[in-house]
């Protein structure tokens, strides 16, 4: 597709379960970002990939959160032992190169932990 694609669009999980959220960036984009957006708030930075490596993971809230991008394209955000406070929309964005000033966002995955 032409844009950033995130799957699933909605995910409901039980407290304590493990979830994976997927991001397909725009083809050829080397930079990829994950954000978390709580209701009524702006996006909060989680992690930034340049190629396959996490260039900045300082926004990950704790060690239950982990993200990978093994081939420098698709990225997966993994959350272990989910808590109700993890409920939010998780946004992915990609940009064509390192140092690009803006990026294209996907529609997000709405995660609800019950």
């Amino acid at each position: 597709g032409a844009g950033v694609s995130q799957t699933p669009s909605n995910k409901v999980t039980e407290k304590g379960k493990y979830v994976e959220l997927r991001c397909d960036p725009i083809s050829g984009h080397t930079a990829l970002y994950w954000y978390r957006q709580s209701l009524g708030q702006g996006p909060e930075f989680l992690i930034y990939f340049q190629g396959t490596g996490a260039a900045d993971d300082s926004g990950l809230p704790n060690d239950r959160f982990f993200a990978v991008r093994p081939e420098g394209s698709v990225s997966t955000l993994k959350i272990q032992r989910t808590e109700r406070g993890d409920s939010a929309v998780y946004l992915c964005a990609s940009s064509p190169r390192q140092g690009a000033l803006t990026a294209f966002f996907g529609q997000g995955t709405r995660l609800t932990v019950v």
Partner: protein
Amino acid sequence: GESVGLHLPTLSVQEGDNSIINCAYSNSASDYFIWYKQESGKGPQFIIDIRSNMDKRQGQRVTVLLNKTVKHLSLQIAATQPGDSAVYFCAEKIGKSTFGDGTTLTVKP
């Protein structure tokens, strides 16, 4: 820490009127700003950007003004339409920058 933020959480305007959405930032070294529009159920969408060496930039129906003296920028939307109803965020360059909580613009027919 450094941040950008918005002055008003909500703004309601009549269709056809002009809208002005304001934003303040704290980092005097910031050299690039973006305005995003986020419709319900969608990700933020780029509207317009401005570099710190400019004080005004115009797009289609939108104008961004930057006042570095008071660290303030604004987004002006001309002839506001129902399709402009959304949450608007100002932000610095993509990455670790803070988005702020946004202004919800509601356009009344």
